[in-house]
């Protein structure tokens, strides 16, 4: 029932967008949607504050052969003292079904604002890392990853 509904609405929407051919319009339809959701999620986290570039570094391969397990690492240049440390690093994915992949929570006892994991990428997309500092500012870094085989079932 649920799949029926979404397919119907998807078909209707493609009809509006492209009209003539359905197939080429489908990826174009899916793309702006999830990107907008991810951007909204970032805004929600930062509370409208503009995150600055630099300080944070997102490590991601430029090309991932298998989207099921893509190594990801984040590092923030921070002294990690009680007065000045990173509280949270959130990793956003722009073309997966859900906007947030993982959020790392840090304390001064973490020693370094550094963490790694493996994530799934449904397709070639931008991955965005946003760090929340203890003074209420935010840092951002974006990396694009080309995925040859997607990793979200499908």
């Amino acid at each position, binding site marked *: 029932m649920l*799949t029926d509904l979404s397919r119907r609405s998807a078909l209707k929407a493609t009809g509006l967008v492209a009209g003539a051919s359905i197939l080429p319009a489908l990826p174009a339809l899916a793309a702006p949607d999830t990107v907008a959701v991810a951007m909204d999620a970032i805004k929600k986290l930062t509370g409208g504050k503009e995150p600055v570039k630099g300080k944070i570094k997102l490590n991601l391969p430029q090309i991932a052969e298998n989207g*099921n*397990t*893509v190594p990801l*690492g984040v590092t923030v240049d921070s002294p*990690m003292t009680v007065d000045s440390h990173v509280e949270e690093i959130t990793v956003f*994915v722009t073309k*997966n*079904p*859900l906007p*947030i*992949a*993982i*959020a*790392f*929570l*840090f*304390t*001064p*006892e*973490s*020693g*370094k604002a*550094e*963490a*790694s*994991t*493996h*994530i*799934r*990428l449904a397709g070639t997309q931008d991955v965005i890392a946003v760090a929340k500092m203890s003074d209420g500012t935010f840092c951002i870094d974006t990396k694009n990853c080309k995925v040859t085989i997607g*990793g*979200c*079932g*499908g």
Partner: protein
Amino acid sequence: MSVPRLRVPKTAKKGEVITIKSLIEHPMESGFRKGPDGKMVPRMIINKFTASFNGKQFFGANIQPSVSANPYIEFDAKIDADGTFDFAWTDDKGVVTKAQAKITVAAA
């Protein structure tokens, strides 16, 4: 759930920042995948990871379905004294898998 795999150094110098690697076997069913019967496979993931040292949480992660199966997490800890690490993974059903590791501060 399976026994988690951990890599924690046994000793550290006072004030040293050590790297901890953790891996737990888990399918991390995203809830976006169809099974062989054509029905959606229900979501079943590990959604939370915490790492504590001597009872105080120093690192954690809120995990979403975009994290790969058998979630691997690497992070750091600053060691000032002897103590015990407690690691805990929580899944969607609320089942908590725990693991421990000990570390001693070696005389520099």
